[in-house]
């Protein structure tokens, strides 16, 4: 479904990704783990067109997408739910969801998806007219995921959805991710919570300083001692 082939990405003169390759197959939940600054978010930002690779290519169902604009990539069904939630705080919950469907034209489908999102997140439906900025951290994360769902993702890029949440909420976020997968959405999940991410993933990649250093089935990675070492940045 998604094929990243040997990409180099720079922030100005600083190289953030060095020859990163990864594959996400239809229906999979793939975890991309690694310590802070390893390049996980950069990878997602490059897929969604916010950054451009200097080398290498990204193809989606065989179509090259690394020169497309972000809003066109969304229309293809690749939806990026960014780190730090990035909800529109001055807009209401409903307005945030409506903008999630900004690229959609089918009114009936939008309405159906909204019901679907409310079913997934009952808390949001109670707060439809509330200003999004006044929601709790957990609710904001639900809204960010719900808003991404409004874009009809075929491939959902989730960046640190558990960041800054209380342990109980982290549990429910991982729960939700599994439920989204069950609905047939392919997911590329970036997480610092490596063990929990691998627990629900089919396969995983480990990143260190801009490179993929390990890739295996999630079950195999869970028992691989190198993962722990990589995750702690080789400090052990």
């Amino acid at each position, binding site marked *: 479904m998604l094929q990243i082939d040997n990409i180099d990405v720079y922030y100005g003169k600083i190289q953030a990704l060095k020859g990163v390759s990864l594959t996400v197959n239809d229906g999979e939940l793939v975890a991309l783990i690694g310590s802070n600054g390893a390049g996980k978010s950069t990878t997602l930002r490059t897929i*969604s*067109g*916010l950054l451009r690779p200097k080398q290498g290519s990204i193809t989606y169902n065989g179509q090259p997408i690394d020169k497309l*604009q*972000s*809003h066109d990539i*969304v*229309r293809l069904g690749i*939806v*990026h*739910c*960014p780190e730090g939630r*990035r*909800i*529109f*705080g*001055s*807009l209401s919950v409903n*307005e945030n969801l*409506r*903008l*999630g469907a*900004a*690229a*959609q034209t089918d009114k009936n489908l939008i309405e159906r998806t909204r019901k679907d999102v409310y079913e997934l997140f009952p808390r949001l439906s109670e707060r439809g007219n509330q200003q999004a900025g006044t929601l709790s951290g957990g609710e904001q994360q639900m809204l960010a995921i719900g*808003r991404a769902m409004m*874009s009809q993702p075929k491939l959902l890029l989730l960046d640190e959805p558990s960041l800054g949440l209380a342990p109980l909420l982290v549990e429910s976020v991982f729960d939700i991710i599994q439920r989204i997968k069950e609905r047939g959405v392919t997911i590329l999940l970036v997480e610092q919570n490596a063990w929990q991410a691998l627990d629900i993933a089919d396969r995983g990649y480990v990143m260190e300083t801009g490179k993929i250093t390990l890739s295996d089935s999630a079950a195999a990675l869970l028992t691989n001692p190198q993962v722990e070492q990589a995750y702690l940045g080789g400090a052990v």
Partner: protein
Amino acid sequence: MSLTSYFLQQLINALSIGSLYALVAVGLAMVFGILRLINFAHGDLMMIAAYIATFALMSHIPLPIALIMMMVGTVMVGVLMERVAYRPIRKAPAVAALLTSFAVGQILQNSTLLVSRFAQQPVQIAFPQIDFLRGVVTIGDLTVSKVNIASLVIGLGLLFLLNQFITRTTLGLSMRAAAEDLQAAQLMGIDTNRVIVTAFAIGAFLASIAGLLYAVQAGTVNPDMGFTPVLKAFIAAVIGGFGSISGAVVGGYALAFLEVLLTAIPGLGDILPAATTSPSVISFFKTYLPGSLSSYRDAFVFVILIFLLLVRPGGILGTTDREGRQ
């Protein structure tokens, strides 16, 4: 004139000036909200509108067609400005964009001068009379110029429509979203270029109406007529809460009320009815707040605004979001 009439008169003045400030200020705020660009050439769009109307009416083009030419022409200049001058430097530092806006303003002013010279017109041209905006309306001892009433009604009407647009349509919501977080808006599949062009187009449209009303009030047009209004609109937007559309509206009316208040109070000594007011009050006004003081209005306005910004740095409606932006 009775005290009530004096009060009403000043109220209408304030609302009509405030509407003009607000019409210009929302254009500045929309663009600033999304691009962090202070577009000082925005005032020159008013000037362009006034000139298109002037030349069209001088060529005896019927008023409705002249007004349509004015609106369409100004919107085209606004959109072109974004495409040619601002889009290429969108990733440049804010200072570069600010300087560019001054350059754009100069180019528009000089082009107007050239066209005037080519049309063998002086630098300052009398604005052709528009019949339905001419003269005054008298109700009792209250006298209000028609253009003031028109500014008030048209201004409030357009601001109402703008409010409908930004709260009810997806494009309008996208605009508010883009102002809050441009990148997140992109990730929603929002075409940010389309949103930015829309902001420039709406801003230019509102500026064209404001430019027309301003020219009618002033009676003349000249190439730097946009400078004072854009400065006032900038101040209005800042005190309201820069970057927010509602802030620009609130700021526009607040600035106008403050100006009118500071003009009206010093004149009170001559207005207060001598029969019912104690002489000491009247002499207080005449001694300490004489009518001549109103020429220092702007100085007092700015002192008050400085205090306002000390107390509320984000403006009247300002909130500071996580990036420390207002």
